[in-house]
């Protein structure tokens, strides 16, 4: 019987076992092939990457991906090898040379990898097509699908070469094991306890401190500009946090775990129970490899969580900020009155419904003689910022009326904000903040406003982050009473006139925005809420996509390692469960033991990973 037929027979005999392996490897290859196809998809990359940023991210992620695939396959291979050690010993006893045994193992790996390659390519093609379809729809891209090949030959070749390289790596790892293990070692292979691990107080305390410090550093970012992330820099602190968490986890688990186990074993009353007497020694017996797996899974869980959070936050914050950057569905500056009719006509061309509101706001700039004015008063008024110098702003408060403010909030659907606002006297005002400030420093401040030749003092009774007008059109907005507003209007002419357009029927209407932009000659004062969200999606889609790949990757890694680890532990203990049954354990108790072993591992990983 030659190697090929032996390998085929073995695969057939253990089909259910190998099917799981084949399935998981196929899944990994699917992700790899889809990613490779995407990174080689020039049609897509041209559309979503202008400066090579996506290509660079693809390269970085492909390193992660390749490292993971190699690691995962080695892990699974070692698992299978351990399970078959005795069988390999019998081959050697029958007169098979170690090189023949090695070529048998390599043939098996080749067959599994070939199967996974075929399945992975077929599924990967559909996965890649789905990604392209999703991005095209999401970003509203015009892509000629016929230009994207169904079979990307380069991606297939790269995947094939990579799989071949993995088979070589597995062969080297198997040969190391086979040639290092004596014939006696193979034949009489039996479970033996791993070297004992001792509790080391100093490293475990250091590890614990490192983890706590890592958390403190991570949370320090919440202090904003006072945090070390701001004063020292993002990259060094991010690296330091990463190192602290990784080193801390390794030290803590490897030094503290024996202590936990020791304590749990020393509690004799709890130890001498029908399940604990089996589960605790089982864990101790494989403590070294259990602790390694725990470290790896803990770090993988942390990585999964981090990447998922980064992905969620990088989407959440910009979208949340849009309600401040562009509070109205569409907003523009009016340079002359005739523009209003033209704009209304363009809007009517895009919306047949009567739910569109047009609110015109005249903004009056008023200076103050106060020495302590808020930051917003003079924001954008100094030289030195090359981008803003062309549209340099005069310092001052930009006043709008109370009733106008309320009408705008209502049109923008900010019901929560409306409910919080009380009435306003002539001597009172509400200051719209540009940045959130927790200390409410401006509340109670009195600002003398210079209106004509008269000076009228107003007291800030509240500050708000619900700016009714975009920051492109107004900063340092002060909401004053209607009477005071009228008084200001009598004395000075408005600084700017802003038209805010809101309504359900004009939401997500990119064509309307483009028409208005064209009419207003690409005015920088034209702002759109839906347009801004669309812009964020367009600019960040590639980042989300690549982060999405990483999240999927980490999920597969964590899930499959956990799965194989459990499968390995249970199949290793199968004979033990038979013995337990003979001693008098019921099936229910045996299941309880298996459940406890699995759950304790999962729970530890969950708590340490978050």
């Amino acid at each position, binding site marked *: 019987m030659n190697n090929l037929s032996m390998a085929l027979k073995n695969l057939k005999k253990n089909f259910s076992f190998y099917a799981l392996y084949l399935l998981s490897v196929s899944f990994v290859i699917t992700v790899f092939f889809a990613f490779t196809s995407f990174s080689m998809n020039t049609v897509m990359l041209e559309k979503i990457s202008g400066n090579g940023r996506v290509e660079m991210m693809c390269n970085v992620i492909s390193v992660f991906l390749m490292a993971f695939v190699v690691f995962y396959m080695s892990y699974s291979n070692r698992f299978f090898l351990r399970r078959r050690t005795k069988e390999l010993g019998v081959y050697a006893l029958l007169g098979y040379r170690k090189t023949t045994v090695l070529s048998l193992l390599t043939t098996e790996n080749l067959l599994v990898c070939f199967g996974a390659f075929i399945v992975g390519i077929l599924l990967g093609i559909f996965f890649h097509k789905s990604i392209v379809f999703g991005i095209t729809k999401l970003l509203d891209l015009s892509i000629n699908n016929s230009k994207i090949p169904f079979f990307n030959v380069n991606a297939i070749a790269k995947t094939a070469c990579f799989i071949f390289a993995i088979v070589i790596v597995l062969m080297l790892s198997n040969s190391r094991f086979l040639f290092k293990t004596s014939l006696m070692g193979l034949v009489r292979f039996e479970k033996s*306890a791993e070297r004992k691990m001792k509790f080391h107080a100093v490293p475990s305390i250091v590890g614990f401190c490192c983890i706590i410090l890592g958390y403190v550093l991570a949370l320090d970012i919440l202090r904003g500009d006072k945090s070390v992330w701001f004063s020292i820099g993002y990259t060094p602190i991010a690296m330091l946090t990463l190192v602290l968490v990784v080193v801390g986890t390794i030290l803590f688990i490897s030094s503290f775990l024996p202590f936990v186990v020791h304590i749990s074993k020393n509690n004799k009353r709890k130890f*001498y129970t029908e399940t604990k*007497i089996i589960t605790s*020694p089982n864990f101790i017996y494989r403590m070294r490899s259990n602790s390694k797996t725990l470290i790896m899974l803990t770090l993988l869980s942390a990585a999964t969580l981090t990447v998922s959070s980064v992905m969620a936050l990088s989407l959440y914050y910009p979208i949340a900020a849009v309600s401040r950057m562009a509070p109205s569905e569409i907003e523009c500056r009016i340079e002359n009155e005739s523009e209003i009719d033209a704009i209304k006509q363009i809007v009517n061309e895009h919306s047949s419904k009567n739910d569109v509101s047009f609110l015109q706001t005249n903004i009056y700039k008023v200076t103050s003689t106060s020495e302590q004015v808020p930051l917003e008063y003079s924001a954008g008024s100094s030289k030195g910022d090359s981008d803003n110098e062309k549209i340099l702003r005069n310092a001052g408060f930009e006043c709008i009326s109370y009733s106008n403010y309320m009408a705008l909030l209502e049109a923008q659907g900010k019901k929560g904000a409306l409910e919080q606002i009380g009435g306003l006297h002539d001597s009172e005002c509400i200051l719209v903040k540009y940045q959130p400030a927790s200390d409410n420093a401006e509340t109670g401040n009195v600002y003398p406003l210079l209106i004509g030749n008269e000076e009228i003092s107003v007291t800030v009774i509240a500050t708000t982050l619900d700016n009714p007008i975009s920051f492109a059109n107004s900063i340092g907005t002060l909401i004053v009473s209607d009477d005071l507003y009228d008084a200001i209007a009598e004395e000075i002419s408005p600084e700017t006139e802003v038209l805010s357009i809101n309504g359900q029927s004009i939401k997500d209407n990119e064509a309307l925005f483009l028409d208005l932009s064209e009419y207003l000659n690409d005015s920088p004062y034209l702002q759109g809420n839906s347009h801004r969200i669309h812009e964020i999606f367009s600019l960040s889609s590639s980042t989300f996509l690549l982060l999405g790949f990483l999240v999927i990757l980490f999920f597969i890694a964590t899930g499959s390692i956990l799965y194989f680890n459990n499968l390995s532990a249970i199949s290793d203990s199968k004979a033990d469960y038979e013995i337990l049954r003979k001693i008098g354990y019921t099936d229910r108790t045996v299941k309880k033991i298996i459940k406890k072993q699995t759950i304790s591992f999962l729970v530890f990983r969950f708590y340490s990973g978050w």
Partner: protein
Amino acid sequence: MATLLEANEVTKIYAKGQRPSLNKVSFNVAESEFIAIMGASGSGKTTLLNVLSTIDTPTSGSIVINGVNLKQLSDTGSADFRRDNLGFIFQEYFLLDSLTIRENISVPLTLQKLPHKKIEKMVRSLAERFGIASQLDKYPNELSGGQRQRASAARAIVKQPSILFADEPTGALDSNSATELLKTLKEANDELHTTILMVTHDAYAASFANRILIFKDGSIIRELLKQDADRRTFYETIAQEVAKLDTER
């Protein structure tokens, strides 16, 4: 002595049309007896042990141990019955590799939910009797075959079972280790009054018993009693019977 085990017309057929592995076997075991079951390979010794110990079920016939008819036991009932009444020693030891010897011996007692202090005391005392007290904190793979088998015997006896089943307990041991084990089993039988049913093909091992049941083709064909004979004489009697059995083949 009161009857502990009653086997009545026990038959076991594995497949239709095949010769029965056990053919209407009937015998009784009294409390504190040490019985050896002998016979050639395939004579039905191990099948008998399996059906008596609830690991397998007979095709027909009845088995009553301690007043309990095994036929009436459910799966859970069988497990509980094994836990409370039976002890096992197997040729392959069947120790749990990931548990130390102390933990291995403790397992049956934890099943009986005994207090931990009592468990530790019982384990220590039995380990001393079996000569493995210094090995208690070692793992099975750190022990010799003889020590492993003694640990296995200690685990079987520690819960003071109504009856101890031993299937070729000396099969994998060298002669010194085998003698040590058999002496220990004999001691347990004499001093702790443990009832033992041992399957063996070895005349020397069988000579430690008080009664021998010789099997052939699924039936008991002869019964030997030690009575007042010394072990050496009994051994010679058994050896002659075994030789006779070989010539009758």
